[in-house]
């Protein structure tokens, strides 16, 4: 533990800006993953243990699209759309068969999917890591704000993620579909009694969740190495965010993702080598004091 360094960091604007941006970028990408996870849980009461796979596949699809078209925008779009479709397929073909059964049965199905797709990625893209490389448009020097470093690429990523967060929350509160989704999260029987086609609704929710995870994977493509099994650590962090924020709450996911991001950003200065442990302590504390999470409804 190094409280001196942490204290010194908090008193210098440069350090605060730099670490806060790095916390934001980690947090925002995490939010995209966790938002889908929490949405799916909210509506279907299913914990999607295969969510990391969407993230991984999104990254790989984007990689291939980028290699083929040389356009980052197209690559990101391809990653997101492909994963939205994959989400629907996953829901229809597999998950719909285990609705209402033991949560462990659902876990088993998801785990099988994780195993299968880790190997499919190995077969299609090879076991080696892949790197997309930075698109030419972003190969520019970083900005300096108050002496802190803010890379333009990350600023754009944060912007995109924030935009999506806004669209998502507006969509949920203003549109008919969004209202149905929220109603379904509170009372599924009521929604089907009102004549909403839950089959379609569930598929849509999985499409949104999968699309968001795929988008996160694609957005991260230029800076993170792609490798089979990379969805795993993201899944765990996504879980932590979902639980801290409250299962089913999009706003909670946003707040929790930012908390995790900032704990990482500043924890690396104050508690080098133990940032992971720090995050688990936060999670345990929240679960003990407020099991439903920051924004969750009590079960």
């Amino acid at each position: 533990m190094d409280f001196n360094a942490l204290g010194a960091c908090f008193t210098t604007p440069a350090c605060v800006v730099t670490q806060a941006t790095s916390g934001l970028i980690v947090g925002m990408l995490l939010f995209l993953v966790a938002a889908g996870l929490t949405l799916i849980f909210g509506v279907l009461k299913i914990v999607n243990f295969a969510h990391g796979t969407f993230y991984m596949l999104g990254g790989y699809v984007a990689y291939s699209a980028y290699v083929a078209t040389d356009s980052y925008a197209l690559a990101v779009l391809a990653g997101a759309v492909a994963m939205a479709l994959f989400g629907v397929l996953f829901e229809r073909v597999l998950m719909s068969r285990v609705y209402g059964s033991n949560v462990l049965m659902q876990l088993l199905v998801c785990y099988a999917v994780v195993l299968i797709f880790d190997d499919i990625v190995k077969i299609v893209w090879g076991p080696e890591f892949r790197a997309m490389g930075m698109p030419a448009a972003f190969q520019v020097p970083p900005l300096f704000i108050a002496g802190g470093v803010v890379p333009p690429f990350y600023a754009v990523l944060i912007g995109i993620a924030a935009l999506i967060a806004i669209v998502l929350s507006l969509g949920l509160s203003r549109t008919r579909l969004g209202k149905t989704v929220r109603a379904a999260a509170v009372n599924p029987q009521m929604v089907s009694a009102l004549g909403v086609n839950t089959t379609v609704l569930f598929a849509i929710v999985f499409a949104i969740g999968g699309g968001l995870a795929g988008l996160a994977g694609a957005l991260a493509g230029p800076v993170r190495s792609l490798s089979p099994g990379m969805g795993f650590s993201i899944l765990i962090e996504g879980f932590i965010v979902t639980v801290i924020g409250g299962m089913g709450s999009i706003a909670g996911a946003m707040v929790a993702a930012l908390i995790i991001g900032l704990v990482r950003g500043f924890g690396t200065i104050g508690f080098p080598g133990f940032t992971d442990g720090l995050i688990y302590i936060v999670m345990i504390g929240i679960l003990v004091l407020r099991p439903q999470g920051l924004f969750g409804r009590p079960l």
Partner: protein
Amino acid sequence: MKRNPALRDALFAAIVLILLLAIPMLHRSPAFEDFIIRLSAMALFATSLNLLVGTTGMVSFGHGMFYGFAAYAFGLTMQLTELSLPVAALFAVALTTIAALVVGAICVRLSTDYFAFITLAVQMLFFSVIVSWQSLTGGDQGLRGGIPRRRIFGFDLGSQLHLYQFCAIVAVLGLLALRHVSMSPFGNTLRMIRDNAERASFVGIVLWRARLLAFTIAGGFAGIGGVLAALFVSGAYPELADWPNSGQAIFAVMLGGINSFLGPVLGAMILLALNDLVQRFTEYHGLVLGIVILAFALGLRRGVLDFIHLVWSKRAR
């Protein structure tokens, strides 16, 4: 007249044990012996988890922490002290049981999904402590230098045969003890809680106390498995306490059947054998394992032994 079921279980255990001990006398096969050694650790691990999952209806995602905890406690005791092996093993298991009591006291008050998550979180915290506390645990690479195998009563656990015999005896006795727990009035109490917690509390059962006791017992027995695992690899590694390992136990329980006492043992057997076998033919063992798991989950919709029971009882009727 019905025979005494307790006696019947003991008899069954004795026969299995005698068979296991007889096999190496007739034919030495290191591969078979390795398999049984690993199975003994895994079977105790999975069956103890099932005391929570199947019997009590508490889904723990963090059971591996006790498996790993015991492995480290045992390995460190052996490396740092001159205690003899059985004493060190008992000490490690006792320590693990206490750890389970403490963790349980935090966790058991939470309901279903949240219980699963908090156990996961506590396990991950424990895992990162192991990895960070390099001076004690050796960090990522585990306890270096091996676990000394001091001889006990002419028993030398460095010898594969003796290790095999030791593991077989410990596993069979451990499973018998777990069977006893599951058939005791307390076992019945746990089933009541699983079936109908509200009603259980209305017949005078203090839910959290029963759950905590179950959690502690399960942790202790997972610890016995952890000690065997540490002996097999002659060390302790963070992976023993990591969540994929907890996942393995859950899959063993699910594959074998949560409502049959021997289900998790069968599940562990299937999982180990599948892993070994598939690895031999393809490096894409995840693909094969995944497809097999899917077939189980979507085809049988329950563990193998549970499925057999179901078919059996349908036929009987």
